[in-house]
């Protein structure tokens, strides 16, 4: 009676038996979750594991680091992003081995897209799927996104952190791998005609942090992300009404409402470049504007050159 298609589902009798088991457990003084776990021994293994996981999570018995990153949840949403990675955007990753497999590292990339950092999540996927020693990178998110409901809570759980020097320094000091997008909102807000033209790299704060913490900088060129929301114009009225830094007008948004938020299925190519070692400079060099500016320009030029190269390599944007 068990429906046999990959996973086995128990029949109605088994479910009733399970519920009776829970009842016996509760009557004997167990709390409902423990009773459910004990009664689940009769169920197929996959359901038993499921009940264990649910019971554990409902008791709060899971790990969450001091940033709010919840690895179990990140793994749970992995299939969704895997779909985007392999099917929707057909991402091709190059040079993943340039990402250090341990210790602190600063991944610097061009930025495009929307309030949800799809480029960061695809870089994460590339590291998790293609690197011989995968590990979860953290990513810095535009401040404004962290004041929004749902999005802020979700991003924090999958490794997002509000952008800022204090957070970046602390993460790197903890030997994490951190993704930053120095273009910031100027990058996400650039019009479609300006795609793949890097904007100013802020004030070079990322270089200062890298110098102070002695973290290697890995420039990353992400091609494809700048076509998912082709921004034709922007709406000042909507931006003022929502408090957003800008509200883009694309061929589909806001005309199609929420449907217009579906990113276009462009073809992506992510290239990780050779790490730039900053250890030749002392941490105090972070106050030396010349060093900071030179390094910032070096990173920017590396990414820009790689972007043009990758654009040719990728070919057609959507097919």
């Amino acid at each position: 009676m068990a429906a046999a298609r990959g996973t086995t589902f128990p029949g109605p009798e088994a479910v009733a038996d399970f519920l009776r088991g829970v009842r016996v457990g509760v009557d004997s003084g167990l709390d409902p979750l423990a009773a459910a776990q004990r009664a689940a021994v009769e169920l197929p293994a996959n359901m038993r594991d499921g009940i264990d996981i649910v019971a554990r999570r409902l008791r709060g018995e899971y790990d969450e680091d001091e940033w709010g990153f919840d690895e179990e949840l990140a793994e749970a949403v992995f299939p969704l992003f895997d779909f985007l990675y392999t099917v929707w955007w057909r991402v091709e990753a190059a040079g993943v081995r340039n990402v250090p497999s341990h210790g602190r590292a600063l991944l610097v990339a061009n930025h495009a897209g929307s309030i949800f950092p799809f480029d960061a999540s695809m870089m994460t996927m590339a590291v998790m799927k293609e690197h011989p020693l995968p590990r979860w990178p953290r990513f810095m998110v535009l401040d404004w996104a962290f004041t929004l409901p749902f999005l802020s809570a979700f991003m924090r759980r999958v490794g997002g952190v509000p952008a800022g020097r204090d957070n970046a320094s602390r993460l790197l000091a903890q030997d994490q791998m951190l993704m930053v997008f120095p273009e910031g909102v100027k990058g996400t807000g650039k019009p479609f005609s300006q795609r793949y033209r890097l904007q100013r790299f802020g004030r070079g704060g990322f270089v200062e942090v890298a110098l102070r913490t002695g973290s290697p900088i890995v420039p990353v060129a992400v091609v494809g992300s700048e076509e998912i929301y082709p921004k034709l114009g922007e709406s000042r009225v909507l931006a003022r009404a929502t408090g957003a830094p800008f509200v883009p007008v694309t061929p589909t948004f806001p005309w199609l409402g929420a449907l217009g938020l579906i990113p276009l299925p462009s073809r992506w190519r992510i290239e990780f470049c050779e790490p730039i070692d900053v250890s030749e400079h002392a941490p105090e060099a972070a106050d030396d504007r010349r060093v900071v500016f030179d390094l910032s320009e070096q990173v920017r030029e590396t990414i820009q050159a790689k972007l043009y190269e990758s654009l040719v390599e990728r070919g057609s944007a959507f097919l």
Partner: protein
Amino acid sequence: MASGRRVLITGVGSHWGAELARRLERDPGISYLAGIDTARPHAELGRTDFIEADLRSPVVSRILPGTEVDTVVHCGILWYPEPGKPASALHEINVIGTLQLLAACERTPTLERIVVRGSAAIYGCEGAAPAFFTEPLARRLPLRTRFQRDISELEDYFENFARRHPEIVCCMLRFQPEIGPDLDTPLVRYLSLPVVPTQLGFDPRLQLLHADDATGAIEAAVRRPVRGAVNVAPDGAISLSRLLRIVRRPGLPIPHPLFGPALSRLGRELGAGALYGDAVRLLRFGRGVDNARLREEVGYDARFDAAGAIRDFAGKAGGRRVGPRLHPASVIDRIVGARG
């Protein structure tokens, strides 16, 4: 230090003042211990010399020099108004009380150190704030609530005092909110509700300090004060959703524009009064502070980390549950019974 230290605690009638007095009484290095407050502490104190006085009145300036204390511990800062009292009383006690205390300190030549039980509320709560505030980051973000401004103001007074008297060590402890089964604070009452209202779509990162660590930290700071501000917080942080699961309380998500009014109504019952503005922001954006200075300079290691404090609270406050319990047995009977 042959004769031992002479310590005076303000706000000794409060839970924290009394707890600290009780711990310091056991310290043989302290030869004289006094406590000032308007009401006697609930707990029985031993050798503490209780002085009944209102910190807001100039009488403190006459009493303090006579005690010849070398250490003043200011526990008289309130975080929320006492039940039935308006929020303006909070400002009176915190700001005016502190001013009078400092005036009294000016007249006490024996004084060597001041330890203040302040609040981490000075940092505020912002969506995009640094995840862990370090001490120099205070006042970098706008001061949004009355309480925040009060705390900032009285920190200013202490900073000025410290500048005027470089020989006196002024230690400003910035406490994160405390949690403990014996505590009767608005936050503990909030977490003991049968259904805990939360803000829809927000899951703040919190650091609630275990009550033992709160007393332990201030005791450590009395023994070894350092100059300037010190954050007092547990290691790590915990999200509200996980916290509620550990204390086994169902959350009730309310859209955040309605949460303020809901909490203020609840606040009256919880005795939080007008402080709800701080609580709303704390429960929307959370706040984390860096406790490195406490660990390394004051030398106090919190016994409980952020999750540990909650687990300990959940274990001990289990019997506190109010309201009906949804009985799983009856639900199951209904389902299984219906199937025949």
